[in-house]
C-alpha cells in the first residue's frame, strides 16, 4: 500500500501527460488505440455486386497489406461492409448504420449511382469523410461537398473523354446510341451538354433498351446517317447486340464505349461475330488489365484471400481507392480526426496508385480526384492492351 501511495504522484503525472491523447483516441468515432474502423457500402448481392463486393475485396486486400506492415501509425485498418441492395432506401440505411451504429471513422463505397446519390445528403450532413469507389453519377461529387471525394471516374468526365477521343480520331459524323435508364441518363445528359458545348451536331441519336435482343432498326438508322463514330452509352449486353447487328450489315464504324463495358475480352465473346469488335475501344478506370504482370502481387493477394475469385478490374478500383485513403490517413497523423482526414485528402496531389491512369489529385474545390480516362482495346485474337489516356481538365 505504501509503495502504491509513493507511486501515486508519478501515476498522476503520467495520466496528465497522456490524457489529451487518450481523450482524442476515445472521442473520435471509429478510432481506438489499436484500430481504425472504415465503413463500406455497396451491393453485396444481386447483379450490382461487381461494383460493390468485388471493389470491397480490393479495399480489404490493401488493408491486409497495410496491417501486415504494422498498420497506419500503429493502428490496424478494419473494414465494415454493409449491403445497400443497389437501392436508395438501402443506401441511406447502410450509411446511417455505418455512421451511427458501427461508428465508422470514414466511409468508402458507392456502387449503384442512384443509391449513392440518395445517400449523399446523409453523408454530407454527417461530416464523415467519404471516398466513392465506383458510382459514376456527377451528382455525387457536384456540387462540391467538403467531405465527399471520388476516385471513380464520373460520367461527365467519361463523356468529355469520349467526345475528345472521337474528334482526335478524325471523326466528323458522330452518332450516339444510348440506354435511357438511370445509368444511361447519368451519362447521356453530360454527353449532350459536352456536345452542345463543342457545337457538334449529331448525325443520329438512338436508344437501345437494356434488355434488347435486336438492334437492327437502330443500326440501319445510324448507318443511313453515315456515322463514322458511334458513342455507345450501353451496358455490355445491349452494346453487344448493337455491334453484332452492325456487323451483320457490314457496318463497322469506330465504336467508343465507356467504363460500363470494362472487359473487352468478355465483350468480344458476347458479340460473337469475328472481327465485329475490331474498331471498338472502351474506357477503363484502371491502367492495367487483370493479367498484367504489374499487378501480379495483387492477383496473388486476392486469390489467397478469396480463393473463389480471380483478380478483376473491379478489385483494382478498390485497390486504387484504398491506397488513396491509406495515404490520407498517414498524412492525417497519429491522432486522426475526421476533419484532419478531410484536410489530408485535400492535400493529395498527383498521388500514384497501382490502379488508376495517372496520379490522384483532390482539392478543396474539386472532389473528383480521378480525371484520367484509360483507353483499352482488344484486337481480334490478341490480348487487351492500353492504347492511350485522356486527362480531362
Amino acid at each position: 500500500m505504501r509503495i502504491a501511495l509513493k507511486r501515486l504522484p508519478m501515476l498522476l503525472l503520467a495520466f496528465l501527460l497522456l490524457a489529451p491523447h487518450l481523450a482524442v483516441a476515445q472521442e473520435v468515432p471509429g478510432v481506438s488505440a489499436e484500430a481504425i474502423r472504415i465503413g463500406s457500402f455497396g451491393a453485396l448481392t444481386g447483379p450490382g455486386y461487381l461494383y460493390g463486393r468485388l471493389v470491397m475485396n480490393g479495399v480489404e486486400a490493401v488493408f491486409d497489406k497495410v496491417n501486415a506492415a504494422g498498420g497506419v501509425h500503429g493502428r490496424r485498418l478494419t473494414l465494415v461492409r454493409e449491403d445497400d441492395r443497389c437501392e436508395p432506401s438501402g443506401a441511406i440505411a447502410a450509411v446511417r448504420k455505418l455512421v451511427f451504429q458501427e461508428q465508422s471513422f470514414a466511409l468508402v463505397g458507392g456502387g449503384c449511382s442512384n443509391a449513392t446519390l440518395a445517400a449523399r445528403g446523409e453523408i454530407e450532413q454527417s461530416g464523415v469523410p467519404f471516398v466513392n469507389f465506383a458510382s459514376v453519377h456527377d451528382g455525387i461529387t457536384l456540387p462540391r461537398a467538403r467531405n465527399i471525394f471520388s476516385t471513380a471516374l464520373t460520367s461527365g468526365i467519361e463523356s468529355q473523354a469520349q467526345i475528345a477521343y472521337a474528334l482526335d480520331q478524325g471523326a466528323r459524323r458522330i452518332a450516339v446510341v444510348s440506354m435511357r435508364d438511370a445509368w444511361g441518363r447519368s451519362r447521356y445528359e453530360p454527353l449532350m451538354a459536352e456536345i452542345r458545348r463543342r457545337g457538334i451536331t449529331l448525325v443520329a441519336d438512338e436508344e437501345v433498351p437494356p434488355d434488347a435482343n435486336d438492334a437492327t432498326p437502330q443500326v440501319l438508322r445510324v448507318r443511313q446517317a453515315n456515322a463514322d463514330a458511334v458513342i455507345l452509352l450501353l451496358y455490355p449486353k445491349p452494346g453487344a447486340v448493337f455491334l453484332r447487328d452492325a456487323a451483320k450489315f457490314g457496318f463497322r464504324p469506330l465504336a467508343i464505349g465507356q467504363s460500363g463495358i470494362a472487359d473487352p475480352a468478355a465483350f468480344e465473346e458476347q458479340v460473337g461475330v469475328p472481327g465485329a469488335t475490331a474498331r471498338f475501344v472502351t474506357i477503363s478506370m484502371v491502367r492495367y488489365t487483370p493479367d498484367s504482370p504489374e499487378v501480379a502481387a495483387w492477383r496473388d493477394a486476392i486469390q489467397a484471400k478469396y480463393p473463389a475469385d480471380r483478380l478483376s478490374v473491379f478489385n483494382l478500383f478498390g485497390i486504387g481507392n484504398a491506397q488513396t485513403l491509406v495515404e490520407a490517413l498517414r498524412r492525417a497523423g497519429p491522432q486522426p480526426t475526421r476533419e484532419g482526414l478531410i484536410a489530408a485528402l485535400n492535400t493529395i496531389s498527383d498521388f500514384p496508385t497501382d490502379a488508376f491512369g495517372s496520379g490522384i489529385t483532390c482539392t478543396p474545390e474539386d472532389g473528383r480526384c480521378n480525371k484520367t480516362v484509360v483507353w483499352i482495346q482488344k484486337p481480334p485474337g490478341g490480348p487487351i492492351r492500353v492504347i492511350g489516356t485522356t486527362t480531362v481538365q
Partner: protein
Amino acid sequence: MRQPVLLGLAGALALAVLPLVANPYLLFVGNQLAIFVILAVGLNLLVGYCGQLAFSHAALSGIGAYGTALLKVHLGLPFFLALPCGALLATAVGLAISYPALRLSGLYLSLATLAFAQFTLWVFMNWEAVTFGAGGFRVPAPSYPLIGAGLGTYYLSLALAVLLALAAASLVRSRLGRAMIAVRDGEVAAEALGINLLRTKAMAFGLSAFYAGVAGGLQALMLGYMAPESFDLFHMALMKAMIVVGGLGSIAGSVIGAGAVLFLLEGLRAFKGAQEIAFGSLLIAAVVFAPRGLAGALNRLPRWRESYLRRPARDAAP
C-alpha cells in the same frame, strides 16, 4: 380491449419512446417499420379481406410518393398539403384502375395489375419533364414545429401507422368490411346476399390505394430522394411477403409481417448473402407450416382472437 390491439398499442408506445434511446439508424428503421405497416395493412385490405390478387400496390405507393414529392418540388406546396394530395392522387388512380380490373379475377387480374405497375414505372422513368426521369430527384426536407425533419417524419409516420391500422381494424368489422369478406369467400353467394360486387371491389381498391399513397408520401419525406427503382417488382414482392408471412385477412398479421420482413432486410445485414436464403425460407415455411401466417399461429393462443383470417385453400369450402 382485445389482445392484438393492446399489443399493437404497446408496440407503438415503445416506438414512440425509441428516439430517447436510439441512434439515427435505428430511428430510420423504426420509420421504415411504420411505413411498411401502412403498406401491409392497405394491401391486406385488398388481397386478404377482399380476395383481389392485385400487383399494383408498389406502383400506387410510387404514385403517392411521386405525387407528394412533385407537388412539393414543382408547385412548392407545403408537405402537410402535398402528402394528402399525393395519397388522394393514388386513391383516384386506384379507383380508376379498379373499373377495368373488376371484369377480371384471379391470374388475369394479377396480370392486368402487373401490366399497370410496369406502365407506372415506365412513366416515372420517361416522363422526364415532370418526374425527372430515371435519375431521380431530391425532395426538400419538410419542416415541423419544434422538432427536426427526421424526428418529425418519424412521429408523423408512427401516428399515421397507428391511426390507419386502427381504422382498418374497425373497417373490417363494418358493413363494408363484411361485404369485402363475403366477396372474398364467394362472389356468387355475396351477390345473392345483395352485395354490390362492383362497388365493394372498387372501395377495396380505393382504400388500399389510399394506404399505399400515404405510405409512399411518407417514404418520399423520409428518404428525401425519389427514384423509380424504389417502386419496382422487388418491392411488390416484399409487400406480398409481408401479408403472406403475417397472415392474409389479418390486421395484426400485417403488422407482424411488416416487422418480420423488415427484420430480414435490416437485421440480417450482419450475415452477408443470407438475406435471400432467409427470405425464401421464411416464405416457404409460412406457406407450408403456417398457411394462415404468423397471425394464424397466434390465433391459437388463448384470449387472442381475430375473426377474419383468410382460410387456407385446403380448408376452404369446395
